[in-house]
Structure formats: structure tokens, C-alpha cells
């Protein structure tokens, strides 16, 4: 049984699956920052109602299994608010993103809180507004502290993304399953997909580590000197 020619035949299809998987991951990471960072700021600097709202959000999205979230949004929430015409890909990306934001907000929150309180005091003593101090002093430090933890979200979301198979997103696992059905070759095809996941994982982390090294500051944070 020669698998390689078969895989090569299906290569364009596989590549589209890889693109879809990476799309899910990037959307989720992007949404995660876009929502997670403001939520973290709200939790640290906001008033009680904001902290409470963020707390509920995090509790909800961390508390439910990802499959339950996917079904809830795919079959329930999207149709209910008139967005039923959106594709499974969009729903999958949104669910991964909303869930990612819950986790990432806690990474950012921890990082913001670990910036020494003297940094804010010194900034304010120079006449900076709270906003300027957060923007120019606290966040540049917090983001560097958060980066290693945040990088770890990449393999998490990458592997989680395969669950989108369940609502029919045509991502890497879905494509793999279709190839298996068509060719009746099981183990080699799944092994090939596993290999692709490992390569994506390794490559992405490599890039993120390069980013960490790039923004590292001598003697600061957990990064390399």
C-alpha cells in the first residue's frame, strides 16, 4: 500500500484544510487579544461592575466544554440572534476566540498585576494621567511578561481547533476524515495529519520564541538576557 502518491493527489485539499485550521487559530488568537486585553485591564483597573462582568464572562467560557460551546453557538445562539447564515468556519472561529479571550484575559491580568506598583507611582509622580501610565509604562512591561504564557495559547488553540470538525468546519481533521472515507486507508492518513499538526505546532512556537527574543529587554522579565 503506497500512501505517498495518494497523499500527493489529495495535497491541494489537505493544504486548504491546513489554511482553514490556521485561519481558525489566527482568528482565535486575534480575538483573544482584542477582547482579552481590555478585559484584563477592566479586571485590574475597572470598577466593581466591570470586574464582575468580566468575572462572569471568564467563568462561563472557561466553565463549559468546548464542544458544548460549539453546539450552543452553532445550533442555538447564532440562529437565535439572526446570524444563522454564517458559515461553520465563522462560528468556530468566534467560539475559539471568545473562549481564548477568557483564558488570555487571565494571562494578561496576571502580567499586569505583576508589574511593580512603583512603576505606576513613578509615572503618576511625573504628571502622567492614568491612561498614559497604563499605555506607556504598564502595558509595555506587562505584554513582555505575558508573552511566554500567551505563546502557550498557540498550541492549545491549534489542537482545540480540531473540535470544529463536530460542526462541520472544513478544517484539517475534517479533510482527513474525508480522505479516509474515500480511500479506505486509515492509519497512514491519520498519521500524516498528526505529523502536519506537529509541524504546525513546532513552526508556530518557533516563531513565537523568536518574537520573545526580539522584544526581550536585558534583565527584565522571564525572557532571555
Amino acid at each position: 500500500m503506497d500512501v505517498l502518491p495518494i497523499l500527493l493527489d489529495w495535497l491541494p485539499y489537505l493544504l486548504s484544510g491546513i489554511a482553514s485550521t490556521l485561519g481558525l487559530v489566527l482568528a482565535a488568537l486575534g480575538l483573544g487579544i482584542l477582547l482579552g486585553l481590555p478585559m484584563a485591564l477592566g479586571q485590574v483597573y475597572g470598577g466593581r461592575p466591570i470586574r464582575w462582568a468580566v468575572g462572569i464572562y471568564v467563568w462561563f467560557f472557561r466553565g463549559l466544554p468546548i464542544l458544548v460551546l460549539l453546539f450552543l453557538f452553532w445550533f442555538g445562539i447564532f440562529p437565535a440572534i439572526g446570524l444563522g447564515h454564517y458559515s461553520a468556519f465563522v462560528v468556530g472561529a468566534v467560539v475559539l476566540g471568545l473562549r481564548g479571550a477568557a483564558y488570555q484575559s487571565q494571562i494578561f491580568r496576571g502580567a499586569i498585576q505583576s508589574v511593580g506598583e512603583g512603576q505606576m507611582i513613578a509615572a503618576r509622580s511625573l504628571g502622567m494621567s492614568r491612561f498614559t501610565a497604563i499605555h506607556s509604562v504598564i502595558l509595555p512591561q506587562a505584554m513582555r511578561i505575558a508573552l511566554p504564557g500567551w505563546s502557550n495559547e498557540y498550541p492549545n488553540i491549534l489542537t482545540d481547533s480540531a473540535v470544529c470538525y463536530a460542526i462541520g468546519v472544513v478544517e484539517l481533521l475534517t479533510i482527513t476524515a474525508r480522505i479516509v472515507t474515500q480511500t479506505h486507508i486509515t492509519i497512514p492518513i491519520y498519521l500524516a495529519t498528526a505529523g502536519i499538526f506537529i509541524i504546525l505546532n513546532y513552526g508556530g512556537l518557533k516563531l513565537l520564541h523568536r518574537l520573545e527574543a526580539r522584544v526581550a529587554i536585558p534583565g527584565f522579565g522571564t525572557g532571555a538576557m
Partner: protein
Amino acid sequence: MNNDEIVLKVEDIHKSFGGIEVLRGVSFDVRRGETKVFIGPSGTGKSTLLRCINQLTIPDRGRVWLDGEEVTNSGARINHFRQKIGMVFQNFFLFDHLTALKNVELALLKVRGMGKAEAREKALTELRQVGMEDWANHYPAELSGGQAQRVSIARALAMDPDVILFDEPTSALDPELTREVLEVMKKLARNGMTMLVVTHEMGFACSVANEVLFMENGVVAEQGSPDLLLNDPQFTRMKDFIGRIDSRMSD
């Protein structure tokens, strides 16, 4: 410049933390170019007093004026006053993610709205003042404590403040590094900077202070020139305090 001009006026400052009254009514005036040194046992509210002046700590009662304008209850204008009231901290609080130069530049760019070239020029000038221009591109973690403190003094100076508050600027430093920081402060005093200094350095107090305020239990217990408080038999409390420190150190 009128040397009798009162630049900072502090009136009846009270502050409690958790039911304990740390400051129990402190008042004094600061003339332009004057150096006032605050001495006294730990926990008598000296640092809290400094923080009440620039409203990093909001006093429960009492008022502060800078150049005749009220700093207390000034709302959003507090950021304007803080530019004019520099502060130097025991633990430096340099911005850890920025080089020495950028530490000094940041508020010039973000608060004063200076252009890049002008801010850089100004920052380098201030670093030169404290003998740190050769270290402009080093990060805080790469500096000794004395160097870091000198950069933080440059950072305060860059805003052209009317007065600088020094909150135990040498307490985190060993004697040699203490000396280099005190040298910079002496130079500032000689050049006419108005300074309020909380310190345990009696030598510095005696050589630089126009007036020493000895604080105990949240009030100014004794106040006068260093010579007066140390030599006039009428004053005993600061001498007692210094005697206690000295005997502890010789133990």
C-alpha cells in the same frame, strides 16, 4: 529671583491608615532654593507626608499650595502640579523596560508634549548633570543602585520642577553608592534647587539643610537649623534620637 518667595505651603496635614493617625497636623513653608530635611524614627509619617504633597496619597485633612495655587482638591489639574513637583523614591522606580535615556525622555514626550529631538537633547543634558550620560543606553537592570538613583534624579529634573521630594533616596544603597547620590543632591542644592528630603543621613542634613524638621508620632517635634537642633540645649529630642541610632550602630 526672590529668595524669600514661598514656593510650597503645607498646612495642617492629617492622614490615617486603618484607624491609625500617621500624620497629626503638619504645617510648614518652603522658600525657593531652600533644602528642608525631615528626620525621625520609622513610622512617623515622613514618607506619607511627602506623598501627601503631590497627592500620591490623599490627605484626610489639610491643604497644600504650590506657587500660590492649591494642589489639594485640584481634581484633574493634579497632573499639572505633579509636573512641577518632582519625586525621587527609595527604590528608584525607574521604568524597567526603558533605557536610562528613555526613562528621562518619557514624560517629556508624553506629558510635556516635546518633540523627539528636543526631548532627547533635554534628557541628555539632565543625565550629564548627574554624571550618567555615558550610561544613557543602558537598562535599569544594568545599573548599580547609585547609578539608577542618579538617573531617577535626572528624570525628576527633566520636568523643570519647582521642588523635588526625596523619599529616603539613599536608604537602599550601600555607603559608597550613598556618597555618589548625596554628591549629586548637594550639587543640586548649591545650584538653588528647592528640595524636601526625608533621610537618615545626618552628615547630609548638617551640610546642606537650611532647616531640619524632626518628626515624631506624626507631628513636627522640633524644627530649626541643623546647628540649632544639635547644639542648643533647649532642643533634646532629635539629639536623643541620633544618640539611639549611634549606639545601635556601634553595638
